[in-house]
């Protein structure tokens, strides 16, 4: 079980490294059409992100730290 987990961890690390190393070449502007698709937004719609963040911040004790506010409202953080 431990060996299987170690193998899986190495496989994931190797795949991630391969994926990240592919960034060594610059992507020209005219090949970024897919990146501009609204489905691809890393943080999504601003209002949706805000309401989801508030949901989790006020129900799990792990708010803040990542650029988002911890505090402000509800008195429950």
């Amino acid at each position, binding site marked *: 079980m431990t060996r299987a987990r170690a193998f899986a961890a190495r496989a994931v690390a190797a795949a991630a490294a391969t994926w990240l190393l592919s960034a060594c070449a610059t992507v020209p502007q005219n090949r970024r059409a897919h990146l501009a698709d609204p489905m*691809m937004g*890393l943080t999504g719609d601003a209002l949706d992100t805000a309401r989801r963040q508030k949901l989790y911040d006020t129900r799990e004790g792990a708010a*803040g730290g990542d650029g988002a506010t911890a505090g402000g409202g509800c008195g429950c953080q």
Partner: protein
Amino acid sequence: MCLEPSKPLGAQPADLPVAAAPSDAEILGRPDEALHVESVATRVTSFDQYGHGYQSQAGPLLGAGSERATIFEPQLEIVASQGDRLRHVLTVPVDVVTAASPDAIDHGPASADVVSGASRFVVSGTIDWAATYRASAESDVSMRAGLHLEEPFRSWHGGLATSRAFAGGDTVVALSALEVFDWFDRFDVTGHRFGRTQRSSTTASAGVTQVLTPTAVVALNYGITLQRGELGNTWNSVPLAGAERGPELLPGERLRHALVVRASQFLPWNGAMKLYYRFYSDDWGLVAHSVEAQLMQRLTPSVYVGALYRFHTQTGVDFFTTLATPDRALRTADSDLAPLDSHTIGGRVVVDVPLAAPVRALHFELGYERYVRTNDLRMDVVTCETGYRF
């Protein structure tokens, strides 16, 4: 089949690196300095929550009390530009909460609603204004300020941020700082008011966004938050040995760290997969891991659907208890600070319809999520957004 997406209403320019390119002013001449509204969006979300927690007195004396609440949350976002360098985003979220407020206390000598019945309601609202100035084609600076108003609660926040693009826009490095100051009523666990108290939260974060391929982008962000002051809501109670309840006793300081990785990969069948991982740790002993996966599928050039699953696990703070001895220096029975796992599953439909001027696009979104926590909390969330791009 190749489905080109409609012009997105909710596109986030900060998401993707932008390479040096001729500005509108350079192409069209001197820009108009008047304020132009680019888009207006409204979102309405309802939360229907059921569950129990040991901090609530809406139940047996030493048992878990009700955390039943319904929340109605309208939001408004207006994006406006001023010339070709200045961009403003005004956000106004409002919460109408049927519980979790000591609204009743100021009007009578009896106990607070959160302490007794958890059934009153409170309306709260926030005004947040962010202005971003594009200093050059590669860099920008932004300022953010806002105010939160709630019946027993006032909060102010302000922040600065900057970002710079490198390598033709493939890499964007961002730094930000944010200060939040909260000023609110102090109550005891029987619902009586004892003046005012305060806390501050200072956050600094740094992040890098990297375009990996024409179909993949990844972002890494680290942030640290220092909180000082009254870090509880002051009315949460803790069951005590001896058949009574006492106040929550929390440290006066909390240092939080969070590391976030996001990745987005376009899929060959006009879909997209988004992955999210967050590691969190603080000096109260709480360690948390959150992972989320979203799958999107474009059905037509104007319509796509999405599904998401999120898993969160946390250890709980060192001093969490459901039955404390009266002499404990630190104690909390807050179910949010307990060891717990949570699962979120949801889906949404998004429609972006291109129109003729003056409204260039119509945006519509409908979503549903089910949130379930292993320590007896569950919630149904329905959300709907409409927006116009001019």
